[in-house]
């Protein structure tokens, strides 16, 4: 497995407040890596650095071998993102939203339409392509956003708490779908969450707390390090909750 995301000794501060300190990890293609942390742990800051919304203070981020700071266009072309808040245009149709994204990635219109059909069909949303996003429920909007993030066939898919505010069946469907994607499409997935039940035993796990990594490895390894058989127990152990 080749390493698709490489985060190396990343630190970042807002004015006086340290948001991230010495964060290093890698995600390989075909791997689903869960970034687990409470609200305020630094997950969104880390995502802002990986997506080059901010420039890293120190350390580096590379996507498919391209440094985000120095080769940002090549790096961003290989990145698909689902942000925490929905970023679809509610007054436009599903198709118009997806075509806009394809245009930003410079996709030829014919190819874009074919890819839109492929991704929407895979999630059972193609029949609803002409509906305005405003008419879709939260779960369906998320599906459209995942389809959008995959249109340009990225090597790395970032998801920032994508299931927030969704009902249980929608959450479950998205969790299963993304895990399946990583394996079938050989995509590296980095999924930020604070919900334990979104983790599969086969995932890689990173516990982020107060801006630094407290534990990382396979789910099994993290549980062993915390001397527990439950992920929730390991999470409490590494974040100091309940002490």
């Amino acid at each position: 497995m080749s390493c698709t995301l490489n985060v190396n000794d990343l630190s970042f501060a807002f004015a006086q407040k340290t948001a991230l300190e010495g964060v290093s990890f890698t995600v390989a293609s075909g791997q689903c890596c869960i970034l687990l942390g409470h609200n305020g742990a630094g997950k969104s800051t880390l995502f802002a650095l990986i997506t080059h919304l901010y420039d890293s203070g120190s350390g580096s981020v590379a996507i498919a071998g391209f440094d985000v700071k120095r080769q940002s266009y090549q790096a961003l072309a290989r990145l698909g993102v689902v942000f925490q808040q929905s970023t679809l245009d509610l007054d436009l149709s599903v198709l118009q939203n997806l075509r806009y994204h394809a245009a930003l990635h410079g996709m030829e219109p014919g190819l874009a339409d074919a890819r839109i059909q492929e991704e929407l069909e895979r999630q059972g949303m193609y029949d609803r392509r002409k509906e305005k996003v405003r008419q879709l429920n939260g779960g369906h909007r998320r599906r459209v956003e995942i389809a959008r993030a995959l249109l340009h066939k990225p090597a790395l898919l970032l998801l920032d708490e994508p299931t927030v505010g969704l009902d249980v069946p929608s959450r479950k469907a998205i969790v299963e779908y993304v895990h399946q994607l990583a394996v079938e499409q050989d995509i590296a997935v980095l999924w930020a969450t604070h919900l334990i039940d979104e983790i599969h035993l086969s995932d890689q796990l990173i516990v982020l707390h107060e801006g630094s990594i407290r534990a990382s490895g396979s789910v099994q390894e993290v549980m062993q390090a915390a001397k527990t058989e439950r992920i929730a127990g390991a999470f409490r152990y590494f974040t100091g909750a309940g002490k």
Partner: protein
Amino acid sequence: MNLLHYFRALNGIVGREMLRFVQQRERFASALVRPLIWLFVFAAGFRSTLGMAIIPPYETYILYEVYITPGLIGVIQLFNGTQSSLSMVYDREMGSMRTLLVSPLPRWFLLTAKLLAGTLVSVLQAYVFLAVAWFYDIQPPRAGYLDLFPALLLSGMMLGALGMLMSTFIKQLENFAGVMNFVIFPMFFMSTALYPLWRLKESSVLLYHLAEYNPFSQAVEMLRFALYGQLNTYAALYTTAALLVFLGLAIWGYNPSKGLIQRKGGGAE
């Protein structure tokens, strides 16, 4: 990365702005009603009190309505620039600005394309306003409508860039009322949109100078001359310079390493 990519992205950004504009009919209506009220009510009321001398580009005595028409086109573009700025703050709070900024294209290009898209919407609004004004007997020479187009693009870009620059300073939507009071209204009232410079000089030399150096005044004068088939070189150069300054600062503001979004947290935790 190639030219075709830039072209497709520009097409996508402009297309999205046009679609949004068509969908939001109330935005179109309010953009049109505002200057029409100024024209039909304000100008009609002041017609008798504000006498106009013959000043270029006019070759004869004109009605006050004719004088303020270019100023009102400027107002359409000023408010459109503000509206774009408001939507950028909203987009940043809501996150959709991020979709644009994570595209694999240079940030200066993405911001300029967004600016151009907003400007084209304001150009459309300006022509619809002029069409209504035509029935109100404000009928500049036909060629003027064509000559106005490049001037509208330039003034729209300048005022849009000002809006974009403001959006880098405004952290929350709630702060927007301040922008209206401290930027938009002074800019409008301290300009040649409603009264010529010589009139202002009679009342206050300070106001005269403020209006003279106000970029909005120069944009309005450029539009006024263009509408009558003339090029006001000084006003056009002044507007271009203002565009370059505002756009340069806005791009700097949105730069990931030097910019202001970073200091403001940019919506991240």
